């Protein structure tokens, strides 16, 4: 396994940059994709945001100070890019972010890259009802099984607050699924 420090150093060096970037993309593309897809829901949008995320990483690698892990830094960029994407799209359509996300969920059934059954669709609807932070924490913890410490570094929130958010989110989602 490549040591993160070496990879960062290679990314900042002209001669080794291209190869190191290729390694970086291979290492993180899937994890970042699922993080983004969990927010934007649609595959094409997730693909756009993932590419923009890596381009941003490439352009800003010199500014990476190493205060946090490279993985957390990239996750943060991916999350911000995905949230900005949602906000931008909602603004373009003149609707609120919440309304836009509800629209995304209602379009899921027609999405060729969604093969979920009724309960999975309902789960997505339930997640949409959560406040933004709870939604992010739920996605990262429940689906991606990240550790609280990792989420804490990505979202810059205390572990205690994250635990509270997660348990609250789980209760709300369960409550939603039990109704009807």
């Amino acid at each position: 396994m490549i040591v993160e420090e070496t990879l960062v150093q290679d990314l900042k060096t002209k001669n080794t940059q291209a190869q190191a970037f290729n390694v970086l993309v291979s290492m993180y593309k899937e994890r970042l994709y699922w993080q983004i897809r969990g927010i934007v829901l649609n595959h094409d949008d997730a693909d756009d945001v993932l590419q923009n995320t890596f381009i941003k990483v490439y352009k800003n690698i010199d500014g990476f100070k190493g205060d946090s892990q490279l993985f957390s830094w990239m996750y943060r960029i991916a999350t911000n890019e995905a949230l900005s994407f949602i906000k931008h799209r909602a603004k373009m359509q003149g609707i609120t972010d919440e309304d836009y996300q509800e629209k995304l969920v209602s379009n899921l059934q027609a999405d060729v890259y969604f093969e979920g059954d009724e309960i999975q669709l309902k789960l997505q609807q339930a997640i949409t009802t959560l406040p933004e932070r709870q939604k992010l924490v739920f996605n990262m913890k429940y689906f991606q099984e990240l550790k609280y410490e990792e989420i804490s570094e990505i979202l810059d929130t205390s572990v205690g607050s994250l635990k509270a958010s997660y348990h609250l989110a789980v209760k709300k989602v369960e409550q939603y699924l039990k109704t009807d």
Partner: protein
Amino acid sequence: MKKNTKNPFKTPQGYFNSFEDKLMDKLSTEGSVMPKARGFTVPENYFDTFNDKLTNKLIKETKVIPLYPVKKIIAFVASIAAIAIIFFGYNWNSTEKLSISALANTDIEAYFENNEFDLTSYEIAEVLPFTDTEFSNMLNSSIENDNILDYLSDNTIDFEELNLQDNE
């Protein structure tokens, strides 16, 4: 806490520290109706072809920017030329020197109308030589007596201030 030295068993590092979290997470979703999968899929070979697609996009994004871009130079030269034409063209056939007499009265009036000078009447009086000057010298049209009377009746509160008797 006292360590049990007779116990030959060990636990993984940090086991007890993370036990509570693991238990809470398990309790949260125990007997849950929540599915673990989301139902999302990706196109075939999407991740295999992603690196190449990204590399192509990155090449386009970070295309080398020429040190002296032709378009920018043309725009710069054109803007300099435009400024020069406006500047010289404005005074091209103008043999008349700039003076106060070259200004239209309406321009002067508009200037005084639209700018605040905060000048008191004493300050104005210091500048204007009133010894041989009549109001009619400064005005294009003479003021009718009726207009003066109207003005005075509208704007004078105390007629004593006018000191009319001394000047009769």
